[in-house]
């Protein structure tokens, strides 16, 4: 850390930094906190679009949101979507990172390629996975039906499995980011450790458990949190791919809020439901922050994480 106390430009270093940070945060206060308060005000008022009136109803709408089956179901669906996405993204991103950490020809090319799904938008992700899953002419049925694995015209996005396939598409889109976090962590593991483990006749699994895992524990945590947060925020992919259907089977909380707003003009109800989402997100953020700021178990590991990156 710089510890200049010398005056320069009239400000001390902490003052300089604080001035910048407060500037940035003021911008955010105006553009986020103010709307949030307005949203809170809305959540206390029942709006009637036809009469163009809004009546103060206290926390009635909050209660309605908490105990209404529609919102409860949507919340559960959000949790399910997040849970499946977290499992898939973690497995896919770690798996890809372990593969890409091996030595093989054209490794650089593959490393560049695997980032591509992350770069395309959710709307395009939805297009691609629709091409894969479409019942009458899609890729999956086109390959699997002639082999007799699935029936002709098998509906993949059916009531039971639509949310599952959305999670798969979402993980396809998001996992590459996790892969790069893992790769950064994997590259910090000294090769000697693996050689030593090999001399001790440690198998693949125990090498992973005792050598790899301790070094990437932190990256695992971050990928977990990033995916969870993104899954709870996710709107674009679900809206573009199923719009909540079939029926309301993929109507996760953000979609329900969207419908309350723009289909039913229930601004109060939508705002109350938003706060449930905000509360879940805040709990996650607090957990994120606590875990991040907590000193990691071994400082040596943390140090070794950043050294090679500086060397490049």
């Amino acid at each position, binding site marked *: 850390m710089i510890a200049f106390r010398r005056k320069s430009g009239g400000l001390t270093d902490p003052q300089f930094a604080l001035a910048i940070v407060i500037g940035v945060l003021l911008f955010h206060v105006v553009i986020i906190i103010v709307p949030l308060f307005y949203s809170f005000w809305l959540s206390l008022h029942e709006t009637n679009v036809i009469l163009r009136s809004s009546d103060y109803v206290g926390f009635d709408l909050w209660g309605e949101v908490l105990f209404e089956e529609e919102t409860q179901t949507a919340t559960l669906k959000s949790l399910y979507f997040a849970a499946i996405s977290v499992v898939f993204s973690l497995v896919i991103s770690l798996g890809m990172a372990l593969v890409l950490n091996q030595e093989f020809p054209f490794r650089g090319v593959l490393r*560049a390629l695997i980032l591509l799904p992350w770069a*395309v938008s959710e709307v395009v992700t939805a297009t691609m996975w629709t091409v894969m899953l479409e019942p009458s002419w899609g890729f999956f049925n086109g390959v699997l039906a002639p082999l007799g694995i699935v029936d002709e015209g098998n509906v993949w996005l059916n009531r039971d499995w639509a949310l599952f396939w959305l999670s798969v598409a979402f993980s396809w889109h998001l996992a590459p980011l996790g892969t790069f976090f893992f790769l950064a962590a994997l590259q910090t593991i000294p090769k000697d450790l693996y050689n030593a483990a090999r001399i001790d006749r440690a198998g693949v699994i125990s090498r992973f458990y005792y050598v790899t895992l301790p070094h990437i524990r932190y990256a695992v945590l971050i990928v977990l949190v990033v995916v969870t947060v993104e899954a709870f925020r996710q709107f674009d992919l679900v809206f573009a791919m199923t719009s909540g259907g079939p029926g309301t089977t993929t109507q996760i909380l*953000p979609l329900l809020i969207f419908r309350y707003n723009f289909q039913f003009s229930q601004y109060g109800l939508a705002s109350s439901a938003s706060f449930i989402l905000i509360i879940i997100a805040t709990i996650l953020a607090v957990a994120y922050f606590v875990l991040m700021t907590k000193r990691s178990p071994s400082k040596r590991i943390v140090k070794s994480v950043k050294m090679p990156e500086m060397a490049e």
Partner: protein
Amino acid sequence: MNRSPNLKLFIALSVAFVLLWTIVPFFWMLWASFMHESELTEGIVQGIDDPTLDNYKRIFGFADKEAIFGGQTKLIANGFLNSLLVALPTAIISTVVATLAGYAFGRFQFPAKTGLLFGLLLTRVLPPVAILIPYFTMFRTIGLVGDPGGLILTYLTGIIPLLSWVLMGYFATLPIEVERAARIDGCSRLKVLWHVIIPMATPGISAAFIIAFLFAWNELLFAIILVGGTQWQTLSPALLAISPLTAVGYSPIALFSAASALSIIPPLILALIFQRYITQLNIVDPVTIRE
């Protein structure tokens, strides 16, 4: 490397699997975009009898069939321009602001730093849909609905916290000695930032710029609400407007595939540049590097 053939085979298979997992969806979307609609609806897993560029031509208005769709596809070409007009300013402004904020957070100690950091992070986890109506109402009051300025403003709030966070970790890893020397030689703080830090931090700052550009290019929700259906409609809502998944009435998937394929060209180029930088970003553990 003394590897057994078995291990080599296993690695080869894993590499093949990773490759397939990544490119198969891309491949079939491109495949569909060269098909005639009638051929596509018979099944995508077949050779293309008569590969066509019609779908692409129609997007640029070079096909006779255009009249049938009421100029719908013009939305895509238009969306391209609008997305560029929105994504570029978003990326430039947010990178500048986040560079300053990231530098302040990454290099200095100041009162209430932890609290302020937390405030920054909290704005990141805020679900966009939760502030949709307030934004819409506010922007309608000041006349920013249907205006790209409103959209840019919204994107800035969404992306600046993330970029600051990423750049904070990055600045903390840069060697401090050069900076210190420059300061002792009498450079002002902003001069040091401009002449010393920014040249050193180019990879991180470029990565931040790309993240911001991709975010603005790809975003859908606010684009629908703020500019959807107007002349300023960006690419994502324009795509959705011709999407057979959501559009009312008949809408061709081959055309939609072609439009989607075109829309990913800028992101793909940026991603290829980006992957050189991303390994240098310390997103892994920005907070603990304080001492």
